[in-house]
């Protein structure tokens, strides 16, 4: 008996083609016609299968932080197109050691008051460094992966964003990822 259910290839977005067709005919078409984002007709992705995964020994593993808070290196990286109604599907990476004063946030869909007061509410970089220094995380991945979480086209997330994230994760020999949605 397979001890991990649904082991192996599993769709990140189940029935992606059907989802995409409904998205384009529904929310997207309405947006293009009216200039209004009608979230009541937005077809939220729904998955029925959950991948089975073995646990890791964190103190011997490399951990990647992925954030959708819209963080980027101020003055050095292009901000996300936070105002776009259709989303921005690009990612940025920056060193996990980046001081918070070097970061800015471009994301129009959450109140920045909290992250402006304390960036660790979305990017717990200094906390993670401390946990690593204490020996409870083997190593942090050298870079944080950051994107702007307003991405209504989930098919584009699967086709564009995730492969890029996976490529970075593989290049950094990551064993696990901590995803912090905003």
């Amino acid at each position, binding site marked *: 008996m397979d*001890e*991990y*259910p649904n082991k192996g290839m599993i769709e990140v977005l189940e029935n992606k083609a059907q989802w995409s067709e409904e998205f384009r005919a529904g929310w997207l078409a309405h947006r293009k016609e009216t200039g209004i984002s009608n979230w009541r007709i937005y077809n*939220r*992705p*729904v*998955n*029925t*299968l*959950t*991948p*089975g*995964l*073995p*646990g*890791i*020994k*964190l103190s011997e*593993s490399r*951990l990647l932080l992925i954030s959708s808070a819209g963080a980027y290196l101020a003055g050095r990286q292009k901000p996300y197109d936070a105002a776009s109604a259709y989303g921005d599907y690009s990612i940025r990476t920056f060193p996990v050691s980046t001081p918070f004063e070097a970061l800015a946030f471009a994301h129009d*869909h*959450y*109140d*920045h*008051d*909290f*992250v402006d*007061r*304390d960036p*660790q*509410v*979305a990017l*717990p970089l200094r*906390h*993670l460094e401390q*946990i690593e220094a204490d020996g*409870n*995380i083997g190593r942090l991945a050298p870079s944080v992966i950051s994107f702007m979480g307003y991405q209504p086209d989930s098919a584009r997330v699967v086709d564009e964003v995730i492969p890029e994230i996976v490529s970075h994760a593989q290049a950094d020999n990551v064993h*696990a*990822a*901590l*995803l*912090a*949605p*905003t």
Partner: protein
Amino acid sequence: MVVAWNAGLIRLVSTPRVVITQLSRGMVFGQPGDVAQQHRILNKALELLEQDAPLEPAYLDEGIEESRNPT
């Protein structure tokens, strides 16, 4: 491993490991300046990584203190 505040949405996508708090968008790891809360949430998330998945969502009784975030 996902740390989230919106239980309804995150449950829809069948994430293998998820920590769900009673906080709000924009403070997924805890309230500004509340280092203890931030560590509790972060440590719970990291703890789940060491367990075989899929796991039932871990609901944390971590919410917003009005004194820290007056409206």
